[in-house]
Structures are given as structure tokens and as C-alpha cells.
């Protein structure tokens, strides 16, 4: 048993951290000025968009652990690029469907795709069915991927974003969402690759959940670090506020919650490619349930430690909170995960 990153994985963490450091946000004003195209290019050049491409033996270039390492770094930097949507969720879906050429275009960074989610943001849109739908993480993307039912099983459909979608003024300032209210006619959508099997979809969902958890862990850890640094420097009553036990315990509790989330997430990320799909999905739901239950509290605590300044739009704190809130909801909040875990544990479904 070796539940620690390998040397190669630590190197990857460093590379991802460097890219996140140069393209991440220090304050909300950076959102307008960061060169997002350059950040995307840097990720592509480092091969980080191609982690889920398979070799001749069908093994991904990077396992769930590598994906989580990159996702955590980008979450920590609040980097405004569609890594999860395009390089993880859409690419993996295309690979599982055997659409290697389309996946390769995403992996090269030449084109981008997001995913089409249901109105609760709780999973991939399954067509036919009623909207509204949300294209998620669609910055620079021409299309969002959805599932279309067919007699042979669900197929991956490419939903063009250029007609019928409107950019949403959503919570998350770092990743784009587009909404569609107009009906979607599955017959007019282009499908790609072969139908997906239940095991494929379970493994895909496990990867999606683990990657979102890793992003959340990055958001929380970076936010806690910012709050702790601030508590060491901010002086009131003639002393740093971090010398007050009330503030110390707030920080300690946030730290414990974030670290516990990291432990559950690391295992979920490892499980994606190593365990049977249903076991991997249980590990991922477990991590997501915990991440979703602490993400709001941790980022709120950080805003609390920053006091008045932490409540302002100009401050970075709410950008962490916003990304964390979005992550909580994506692919099912805590309650959703708990009910699914209960199905597995109590009824053996």
C-alpha cells in the first residue's frame, strides 16, 4: 500500500502548479486581463489536455490520479479555463465512445467542447427530454456533449452552442455556462462513436465526480491558505488577529475539513481506473458527498476570517466561494450522493 503521490506524480503537480500560478487569479480584476488562450496553450503543450487519451493497450496517458493532480492545481489557482469540461469530461466521453479522432482534437487543444447538463446540473442531459439545459464549462467551445437514447444504448451527441444558447450570468466567475430553453430535436443532432455501456457511464461519472472533487479541494486549500496568511498579518487591538483563539479555531476547522476532503478525493481519483466501475463510483460519491458538505462552509469561513474586506466584490474570497458553490451542485449535491450511497449500502442496488 502506498497512498502517496509517486515521484512522477509529484513532478506533474509541480508543472501544473506552475501553469496555474502564471494564469491563476490574485483578485477578481484579473478575470478581465488574464490571457486565457495562453493558459490553454500552456496546458496543451505540457500534454495535460491529453491525459485521458488511450495508448495501444487502451490505458489512459494519465490515470484519475493525474487528472486530479491537475484539477486540484487549477482549482487552487482559480484558473479560468475549461479544463474539466473539455479535457476531462468531454474528452473521456468521446474516448469511451471510440470517437478517437474527435477526442484527439480536444486533446491537442485545437478545439474545445463542454458538456450539456440537465436543469439541476446533476448529470449529463439525456435526450429526448425537456429542458432547459445548460452547457457547462463552455468557454471557447463550439459544442456541448449530451447523451441521446438509441435502441443500442445511449450515444454521445454533439450539440452546437452557436444557436439557441445564451450565456448565463452564473455564480461561477471562472467557468462559462450557457443556457438553452428551446427544444432540442435529437434526430437533428450528430451522434459520434458507438453506444455506451452502463460500465462506461459509471466509470465516466466516477471520473467526473473525482475531478470536480479535486478542483474543490484545490479551491478550499488555496482559500484556507489565503485566510491563514491574512490572519498572520492583519492587526487589530495591536496584535495579529491570528493570535486570537477564536480565529485560530476557525482556521483549524476549515483546514481539517479541506484535508479530509483531500483524503477522500485522492482515493476516489485512484479508484477511477483501478477498481470495478461500481466500486469506483461509490468511492467518488463518498468523496463528493464530503466535498459538497464542507465546500460552502470552508469558503464561508475564509470570507469570515477576511472580515469586512472579504465581503467586497473586489476581494478574491467570493471567487473561491462561487467556484466551490458550483462544484457542490455539479453532478449531484450532498443529498443526491447520500441517497445513491444508501441505495448501494442498504438495498444493494
Amino acid at each position, binding site marked *: 500500500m502506498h497512498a502517496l503521490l509517486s515521484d512522477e506524480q509529484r513532478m506533474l503537480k509541480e508543472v501544473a502548479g506552475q501553469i496555474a500560478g502564471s494564469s491563476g487569479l490574485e483578485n477578481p480584476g484579473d478575470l478581465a486581463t488574464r490571457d486565457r488562450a495562453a493558459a490553454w496553450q500552456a496546458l496543451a503543450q505540457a500534454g495535460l489536455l491529453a491525459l485521458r487519451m488511450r495508448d495501444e493497450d487502451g490505458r489512459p496517458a494519465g490515470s484519475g490520479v493525474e487528472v486530479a493532480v491537475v484539477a486540484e492545481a487549477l482549482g487552487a489557482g482559480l484558473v479560468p479555463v475549461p479544463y474539466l469540461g473539455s479535457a476531462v469530461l468531454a474528452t473521456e466521453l468521446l474516448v469511451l465512445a471510440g470517437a478517437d479522432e474527435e477526442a484527439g482534437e480536444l486533446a491537442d487543444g485545437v478545439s474545445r467542447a463542454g458538456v450539456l447538463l440537465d436543469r439541476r446540473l446533476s448529470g449529463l442531459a439525456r435526450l429526448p427530454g425537456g429542458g432547459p439545459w445548460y452547457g457547462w464549462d463552455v468557454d471557447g467551445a463550439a459544442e456541448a456533449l449530451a447523451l441521446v437514447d438509441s435502441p443500442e444504448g445511449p450515444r454521445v451527441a454533439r450539440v452546437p452552442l452557436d444557436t439557441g444558447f445564451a450565456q448565463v450570468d452564473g455564480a461561477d466567475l471562472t467557468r462559462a455556462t450557457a443556457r438553452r430553453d428551446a427544444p432540442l430535436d435529437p434526430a437533428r443532432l450528430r451522434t459520434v462513436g458507438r453506444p455506451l455501456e452502463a460500465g462506461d457511464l459509471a466509470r465516466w461519472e466516477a471520473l467526473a465526480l473525482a475531478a470536480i472533487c479535486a478542483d474543490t479541494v484545490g479551491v478550499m486549500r488555496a482559500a484556507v491558505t489565503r485566510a491563514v496568511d491574512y490572519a498572520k498579518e492583519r492587526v487589530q487591538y495591536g496584535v495579529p488577529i491570528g493570535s486570537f483563539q477564536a480565529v485560530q479555531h476557525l482556521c483549524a476547522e476549515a483546514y481539517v475539513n479541506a484535508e479530509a476532503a483531500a483524503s477522500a478525493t485522492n482515493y476516489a481519483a485512484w479508484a477511477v481506473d483501478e477498481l470495478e466501475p461500481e466500486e469506483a463510483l461509490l468511492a467518488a460519491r463518498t468523496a463528493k*458527498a464530503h466535498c459538497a458538505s464542507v465546500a460552502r462552509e470552508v469558503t464561508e469561513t475564509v470570507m469570515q476570517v477576511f472580515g469586512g474586506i472579504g465581503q467586497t466584490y473586489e476581494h478574491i474570497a467570493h471567487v473561491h466561494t462561487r467556484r466551490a458553490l458550483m462544484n457542490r451542485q455539479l453532478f449531484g449535491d450532498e443529498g443526491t450522493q447520500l441517497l445513491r450511497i444508501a441505495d448501494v*449500502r*442498504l438495498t444493494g442496488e
Partner: protein
Amino acid sequence: MDYRDTPQEAEFRASLRQWLTENIPVGWDKIEDPEAAAQMRRAWHRTLYQAGYVGMSWPVEYGGRGLSAAYDAILNEEAGNLNAPSLPSVGYMGRAVYTYGSEEQKKHFLPTLLSGEAQWCQGFSEPEAGSDLASLRTTARLDGDHYVVNGQKMWTSGGQYADWCLLLARTDSDVPKHKGISCFLVSMKEPGVTVRPIIIASGEAETCEVFWDEVRIPVSQRLGEPGEGWRIAMTTVAYERGPADIGFIASYRRTLARVERLAAERGLLDQPETRKQLARAYVRGEVLRLNCVEQLAARVSGQQPGPEGSVAKLLWADAEQSLQHLAMDILGADELTGTESGWLSSYFTSRPVSVYGGSAQIQKNIIARMLGLPR
């Protein structure tokens, strides 16, 4: 990164499992008489020792097998899974002796500590020195080639069955409080030692207070240098909180399974709220387990135990106490009227988890230090 056993670990686990199924004393958990239970634990300790399962991660020269802490963790896990009696906790006291002891002390004390012939307890806390352990008042006055000990210790678990005590006492009151403490290896059979059980809120004798009245200890039984007691104590408690000692995870799982059965018996499994609560309890247990697994991996790779043990301790207390709350909510009146016996006692037994071994508040202080927050 790999959460699976190595081939060697898997082989060890398989043979251990076989051994446990053959050697766990039948009906051990039905023993009600405390004396008989203590005897059973002693015998269990000897059985484990003879099979080579005690002190596996100790250095070979001190009777161990020089294995990584992962093996202790596997032992804990399997013993818990197969409902074995609690494992003897020789690890952290042994570590104090082999880290700080003289050659003579090691030769004299370690073999019987390992084998279970001699049972040990820990004399640290006092009525006026709980969280603020360094303010302890028990004194050891040098008198020729002996120290003479006077004072009172509290929360001395297993004190009534112990042969020896790892004792902290003040040997110098003229220096800052952390620097005037020394550590001793003392026989509990010495004249002047009086042990009284402490009945905790559950109504059970869980621990003891120990009175020390002019107890004489040979100078040769001081562990380490005079004034080194605080350092020894801190090493000891770091390992006491250690992730290898994850028997509580297996016991948590067993309790959760019982709570799930209770919910099923009461027809509550079709209630979404109950289902969520049970799943939440499962999640808490998994998060705790995975946090411990990571800390263990860090330990195996050579890191010394540090403040991260405080994270696991806080998670553990929260999981254990939340699970008892859940049981209470499911049982309702039945827990309060004695219809379902044992659960109220389990509830009160879960309360001190956030107090002993360093209270939750002390653990948060430790984490705040680690984060570099100013004093």
C-alpha cells in the same frame, strides 16, 4: 499511488486472517465480570505475542520484527473486521522506553512489556493538569539513590490491572514548567501506590485515579535525563495518536452495521432522511479511514508523526459522536427506557473521545501552531 496491499502485505494479511479465525477467544465479548475480562485480555496479549503479532514495527534488537507500520495497521484492521478483542497498546510506551531508555532498562523492561507478562499504564494527567499537562504537580524528590514520589494522577487507564507505570513527575520547580519534569518507570506494587477506579458518566469503570504517597523509586528507573520528561511525553503522545493504531475504524464499521440493522428492524429504511443519515455516517467513516491511510503511508515512507495526527483525532471524535447521535435518534425512547440496553452506555462512552488524548480544542490549537498562526 496505490491503495492495494503489496504482495508481501497481502500474504501477511491472508495468513493473519487464518490465524485470527483460529485463535480469537470464543465468547470473549460476552464476559461481564471486569476481572475475568482483564484476565482474558492478558491471555490474548500472550497469544498474540507468541504468534509474533506484538511490536511488529519495533526494531529487531528490541524484540520486534522491524516491519513497516503498515503491518500494524493490517493487524488492527483485520482484528477489527473479525471482531477480535482489543489489541494491546504496547507501541507507544515501548517507543518511549526504547528511544530514551538505557541499555539496561531496555533489556529489563521491553521483553515483558512486549510479551504481556507485565501490563503498563500511563501516569500523565492530574486533577490540575489536564490539557495543560506541563503544569503537573506530582513531585519526585531526590533522596540518595532514590526518588520519592508524592501526588495524584488521573485518567490512568488500566491502572487497576497494571504492573508498571510510565510516570511523569516534577523534579525541579525552579525552572520553567516544561523543563522541570522527569519520566520514571515505576512498579504499581510499591508501597504508597493506591488505585481507585473512576466511574464515568456511562456508569462504568473506564479509567482510574492513582495516589502516590512517599513512593520510592530507584534512580536507575528514571527514563532519560532529569528534565527530559516533557520531550518523552510528547514523543509518546504523538505515537499514541498514530494512524497505525486504527482499530477504531473497524470498531466504527461494526457499530455502523448495528445501527443499520436497528433502522431496518424499525422499518425506517424507506425514509429518505434516515437513509441519508446512514449514508452520511458511512461517509464519515470512509473519510476518517482514508485520512489515516494517507498518514500511515507518510509514516511508512519515513516521516515522523506530527500535528497531522490531530486532524485524524478530530475526524474520529466527530464520526464516533455523530454515530451515537444517529443511534439515539433511531432508537428514540428505547434507548432511554433501557429497552435496548447498551446504547446509552455507548453514547456516554463516545463523549470523552473529544476529551482524552488531547481535547478537540487542544487539537485545534496544535493545528493552528502548524499553520504558523501566532501565539
